[in-house]
């Protein structure tokens, strides 16, 4: 029997039992759609997390202070204040051209900002001049402050785009003056509120829009020269909260990480890396950790879809068994006129595969439609929904495989029927 005839015969019998075929197929359709939609959401979430991490700048090695350890006793509470701007300079000097850039930061806390009759409250951070390079963060207008600004503790500021809009609306803030106020002596009650420091800063630039990372809206901030933050805003001279080094490529990021660690261990006179008073992390680690999490998440979602696919497969087997039973006489007739076991096996197997294969294709379309609907949900609007060709191939492959696996037993039962018994079957 030619394959063409097997297909024709299988499709004919599916068309004859339209409702039954449709309902049986529904199990597979839902299963495949679930796999496609869930894996696509999972992949999307994973890509979204990766984008978010890379949004902080690429190939970054970050040094943060850790609790100092003294002869095995770990200091409590606050982080050690051992990271300095000299550490950064030392790293820059020793690694030279093998790194792309480096910058150091000091948090200066939240400040009340006023300008042009508007006011806002936002964070101020002291940074060094290579901040835009390290963070892959271009300026919307104006320029970033320079080394000479840092050398003279210049009271200049670069605004985040949201902050700029909050304070100046449509006016270009570059060249304008803003006032930083910090109340001291109480939470702004009574007379105490009157006692505040007021500092004037000249706006030299506005950062481009970056969006938010892990809920932190990074466009609402002000950056000032590191030395200005240290001397004018916080009074914590020399101390920095973190040093960020940009490796020259993702291939050298691990080497850079260990280089940085070694340099600082020497500088801080620490023999045992385990008791270092700083921590060096790199983006590869962060990405790996994140993708491990999202990978598990995707696997879980895929497994849920897989279970519904399995249930659909059992439905196929059920219906195929009923169908073999119903058509016992037909099998007898076919055998009487010369059908071999293989012919009967093929006929029923192809019928099962046609059910699951068609179900698979419809399921992919439905799954795709579901991801489009998911996209309409505001919370997921900027979640990239990824349907890869791999997912589609696996879904179709799996549904056809389900047809083979769950169709094989009924088809074998059909093929093994004895022609006389099959012909006598009422």
């Amino acid at each position, binding site marked *: 029997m030619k394959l063409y005839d097997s297909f024709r015969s299988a499709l004919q019998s599916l068309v004859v039992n339209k409702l039954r075929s449709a309902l049986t197929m529904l199990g597979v359709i839902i299963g495949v759609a679930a796999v496609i939609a869930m894996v696509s959401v999972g992949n999307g979430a994973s890509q979204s997390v990766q984008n978010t991490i890379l949004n902080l700048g690429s190939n970054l090695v970050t040094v943060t202070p850790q609790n100092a350890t003294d002869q095995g006793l770990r200091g409590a509470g606050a982080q050690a204040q051992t990271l300095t701007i000299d550490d950064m300079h030392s790293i820059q000097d020793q690694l030279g051209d093998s790194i792309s850039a480096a910058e150091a930061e000091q948090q200066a806390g939240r400040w009340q900002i006023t300008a042009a009759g508007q006011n806002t409250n936002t964070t101020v951070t002291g940074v060094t001049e290579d901040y835009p390079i390290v963070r892959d963060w271009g300026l919307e207008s104006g320029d970033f402050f320079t080394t000479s600004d840092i050398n003279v503790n210049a009271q200049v500021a670069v605004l985040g785009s949201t902050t700029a809009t909050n304070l100046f609306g449509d006016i270009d803030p570059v060249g304008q003056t803003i006032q930083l106020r910090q109340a001291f002596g109480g939470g702004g009650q009574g007379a105490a509120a009157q006692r505040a420091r007021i500092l004037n800063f000249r706006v030299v630039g506005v950062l481009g829009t970056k969006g938010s990372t892990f809920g932190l809206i990074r466009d609402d901030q002000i950056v000032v020269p590191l030395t200005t933050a240290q001397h004018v805003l916080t009074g914590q001279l020399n101390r920095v909260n973190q040093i960020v080094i940009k490796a020259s490529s993702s291939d050298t990021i691990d080497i850079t990480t260990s280089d940085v660690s070694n340099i600082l261990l020497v500088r801080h006179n620490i023999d045992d890396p385990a008791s270092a008073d700083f921590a060096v992390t790199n983006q590869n680690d962060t990405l790996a950790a994140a993708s491990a999490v999202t990978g598990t998440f995707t696997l879980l979602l895929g497994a849920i879809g897989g279970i519904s696919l399995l249930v659909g497969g059992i439905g196929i087997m059920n219906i195929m068994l009923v169908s073999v039973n119903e058509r016992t006489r037909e099998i007898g007739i*076919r055998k*009487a006129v010369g059908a071999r076991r*293989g012919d009967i096996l093929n006929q029923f197997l192809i019928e099962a595969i046609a059910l699951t294969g068609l179900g698979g294709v419809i399921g992919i379309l439905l799954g795709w439609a579901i991801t489009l609907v998911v996209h309409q949900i505001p919370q997921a609007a900027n979640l990239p929904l990824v349907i890869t060709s791999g997912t589609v191939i696996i879904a179709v492959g799996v549904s056809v495989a389900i047809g083979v696996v769950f169709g094989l037993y009924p088809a074998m039962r059909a093929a093994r029927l004895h022609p006389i018994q099959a*012909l006598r079957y009422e």
Partner: protein
Amino acid sequence: MTDSVVQLRGITKTYRIGREITVNALRGVDLDVRPAEFVAIMGPSGSGKSTLMNVLGCLDVADGGTYILAGENVNKLSDDKLASIRNKHVGFVFQTYNLLSRLNAIENVELPLIYGGDRKQRRERALAALEQVGLGDRIHHRPSELSGGQQQRVAIARALLNDPSMILADEPTGNLDSRSSAEILSIFQRLNDMGKTVVMVTHEPDVAAHCKRVVRMRDGLIAHDELVPRPRRAEDEIALGIGAAE
């Protein structure tokens, strides 16, 4: 004797019913059917005629003895080999027609060629077979849209399609009125006139009277085997307006 279509020697067949009871359905049957014979196999229920029919049609395998069908020994063949033998050498006509209800007439007739033969000639030959049984104008009707006699004629067309060595009919008129029965018998007689070998199981003497030879079974053995001196002609009976089996 190699020119026989069917050569049975000492065929035995035993059935086991349940755990204890065994039935000796055939107890050593010898039978020769030569080309262009029209043989009726008769006998009461339990005489073994259905079993003989199944063995002849290669639907079942004998326990003992030898069976040579069209020069081929079919005793020890596998299921798939038997299927090819059925496809090539045997055309079945059943009492209950056994057409596939979801296929139309021509698709039913084509069925044997699906399992053997090439696809190009299929439609052509099926059409020729249907015309031979006088149903050239009903090719797209489903079995449910045809009368019993017409359905049986479709079944005969199907049996003819692979130009088998033998047409094996099991009570072909059992479900038909006398007029349709006569039509079916006249088709068999016409095919036999053209040289086809026909073996027909029946329990009606009136039907058997249309055959050239009658074999009577009793208790798993052939009891009588005689030629019919002057077989009745179904065409004449139709012309006279009387049924065959009255």
